[in-house]
């Protein structure tokens, strides 16, 4: 049975921002200014309607939108909902069909809000699902890629009305490669409408209910803060997560290689972890965590870095020396940890010759 549709409130926007930033596992960008924009639209009477994926007809056509590029550029140029939303009619024109709903490309960080903004501006319902269940750095690291769905066509719009259609791509890796190049050309930030999906594809090949999950996590954090409880512990309890480590950032090393923000952070333990050290490698998002040199967690399990006091997520761009942090693992959607999922999003896809062993393995087993 499908859940009834609901309309997001201004409070829901704040809750979703907190939750989505945590699910971003260090990437996806701070949702702050997209929340602001959504709030402005809401004040003008636009509505953010959310529907259950299971309520979609099999032949319904669903747009999938997201902003790609460097989070740092977005901090300066921001993202304009109307520009992002304009990728959708452009796609409709290209394929000669109208969309009935819009879905999230990636729930993590700021990207989930792009579908919400587009839905508000075009009066389309937003489907409660996404193609990552978290954030990942590449287009070929999605459930659509895992399920072998076509990667094309894409539309891409720049705020100067440079408009690009990627009519066909051999596969997701090629689509990633081509769009990344063009994205850099137009300023390292680009609004995109990804390959259109049918209702049947959405129901079978996405991470379901991740928008609701972000809302739930956000509300958990808000409630804990209100009641002066430990927000990090509340999220761990509420989401069936694990606290991996608690400590202080003692080093944050970042470098750009092959167009990604790669690097490592080092955390000195406090309290129960006193005398131990955690090292986490990232490629835009956190990829592998080692405790005293031993692998403690890897993708696709969600490795989340949280401010120990406030429960806010900390991004790979903003993590810095001296921050007091808690490293938390949250379970990944099953499709990511499946055998075919691991071929696209397992540790080896990030260059680590490691077998994925979920920190939740015993529990699941």
């Amino acid at each position, binding site marked *: 049975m499908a859940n009834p549709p609901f309309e997001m409130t201004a409070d829901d926007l704040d809750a979703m921002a907190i939750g989505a930033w945590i699910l971003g596992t260090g990437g996806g960008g701070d949702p702050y200014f997209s929340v*602001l924009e959504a709030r402005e639209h809401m004040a003008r009477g636009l509505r953010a309607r959310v529907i259950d994926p299971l309520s979609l007809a099999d032949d319904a056509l669903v747009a999938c939108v997201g902003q790609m590029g460097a989070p740092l550029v977005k901090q300066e140029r921001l993202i304009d909902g*109307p520009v992002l939303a304009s990728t959708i009619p452009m796609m409709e024109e290209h394929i000669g069909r109208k969309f009935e709903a819009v879905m999230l490309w990636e729930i993590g960080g700021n990207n989930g809000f792009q579908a919400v903004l587009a839905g508000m501006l075009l009066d389309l319902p937003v489907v409660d699902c996404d193609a990552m269940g978290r954030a990942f750095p590449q287009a070929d690291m999605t459930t659509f890629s895992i399920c072998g769905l076509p990667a094309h066509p894409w539309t891409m719009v720049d705020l100067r009305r440079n408009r690009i259609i990627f009519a066909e791509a051999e596969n997701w890796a090629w689509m990633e490669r081509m769009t*990344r190049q063009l994205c850099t050309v137009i300023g390292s930030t680009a609004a995109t409408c990804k390959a259109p999906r049918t209702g049947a594809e959405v129901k079978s090949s996405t991470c379901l209910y991740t928008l609701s999950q972000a809302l739930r996590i956000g509300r958990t954090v808000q409630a804990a803060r209100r009641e002066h409880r430990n927000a990090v512990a509340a999220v761990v309890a509420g989401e069936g997560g694990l606290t991996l480590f608690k400590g202080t950032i003692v080093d944050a090393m970042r470098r*750009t290689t092959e*167009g990604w923000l790669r690097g490592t952070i080092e955390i000195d333990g406090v309290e129960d972890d006193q005398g131990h050290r955690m090292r986490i490698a990232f490629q835009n998002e956190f990829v592998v965590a080692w405790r005293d040199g031993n692998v403690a967690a890897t993708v696709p399990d969600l490795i989340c870095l949280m401010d120990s006091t406030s429960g806010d997520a900390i991004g790979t761009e903003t993590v810095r020396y001296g921050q*007091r942090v808690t490293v938390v693992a949250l379970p990944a959607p099953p499709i990511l940890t499946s055998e075919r999922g691991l071929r696209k999003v397992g540790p080896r896809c990030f260059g680590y010759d490691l077998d994925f062993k979920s920190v939740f393995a015993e529990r699941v087993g």
Partner: protein
Amino acid sequence: MRIGIDVGGTNTDAVIIDGETVRHAVKRATTADVLGGIEAALGDVIAEAGVPPSALSAVMIGTTHFTNAVVQRSQLSRVAAVRIGLPAAATLPPFVDWPPDLRELVRGPVFMVRGGYEIDGRALVPFDRNGLREAARAIAGSGVTAVGVSSVFSPLNPDLEQEAAEILSEICPGIAITLSHELGRIGLLPRENVTLLNAALHQMARDTVAAFVEALRRVGTSAPLFITQNDGTVVLADEAVRFPVRSFASGPTNSLRGASLLSGLDDAMVIDVGGTTADIGTLVRGFPREANNVVHIGGVRTLFRMPDLLSVGLGGGTLCDPADPKSIGPRSVGFDLQRRARVFGGPDLTVTDIAVAAKLIDLGDQGRVASLDKSYVEGALAQIRTIIATAVDRMKTSAAEVPLIVVGGGAFLVPDRLPGISKVVEVPNAAVANAVGAAMAQVSGEVDQVFSGMERARALDAATEQARANAVRSGALEHSIRLVEVEDIPLSYLPGNSMRVRARVVGSVSM
């Protein structure tokens, strides 16, 4: 010899420092006009110490006035906003995330024109000069006296903001102009917010600093006047008039810096126990450790780095429940302690009364707390210590034992021994630590820029050199300058070797 002054909401403290020794300290009431309080404190500290005004090499003033103006929504000017950046960010105009009451007070005419840069230095779109001239003419006709100018990627290339300033000063003669690249780093909205706050404070800053200058003139000193800033450094008064927002956090910063100077410790925790709260911070290499989180000033999101403080509701005026020794605070009689505490003849049982009953301090009329049950006093005292110990522990970042420096009027409440603390350090002149911190402040130079097409080491060197030059411009002695922070963030997704480098140096002021 130099003088440090802390102009707080209630008291104006002044100290004379000779080398690193506090020669004399006074505490006077802050006056509504600021001038009277400073003149009294400054005049008295000089007279009582017997120091001729000509012997002073510098006067350094720390004040919470600018923050208070924003927090209390008082003395702010209405300002115009100009943003160069269309077609980007069209849906989020200047002032968009301000609290409504503050926005109503400050928001004047708002203009967005086409222009700005890409992260790789190319123009976003051609700059709309005519649009800017039109905006300037409208601003000239609007009667506002200040304008804030922001531009997309101006920290990378400030020339459009500079050109806008030329056009604005030509068309709007005498208008006070704040340019965002002078105040901020990457992050358009918070940088713009700070720019507009700064513009809104321009008249108030001018008046306040003029009062400082007048106070110095009246006591007959021609020593240079410095104003302390968020990061524990000072700038010359003229510079402070241009950038009042940089002085927002000088209160807690001066308290931490003062604790460092008074104790001789560079790495320690500090607890400042006042009338209403105890504020705990951490010194790293003599400077406050900064907060993790985004800093809001009066509800406005900013990019400031502020000292990381934990405030707990425990001070000399904190109320105790006579029926339950475990129930202490967070309510407080605040500055009314002298009327409301029992030992001063008042009706309320405060933490100060407990301290007097426990003979931690001799204040007021001890007889008025003699009837308190001994086990109640012990229980309350244990609870006070638990509150302090818990708060100190929460601010600790490593398991290693660290010293804790105690300052503020309520220092007597801090026990001699605390878990995780190697030593509780009491210091002389603890009640005027803020003024001492102001007196010992240094000057800084900062750079935050994107460097492209050079090796990492060369970029770091270039940034450090620019920071040094900035410090010298602010009055630092060249040989005393040291690098306190340098960090680089490679810019992801960018071709070439682009990185954002931030460097900060500090140096001593010439005496």
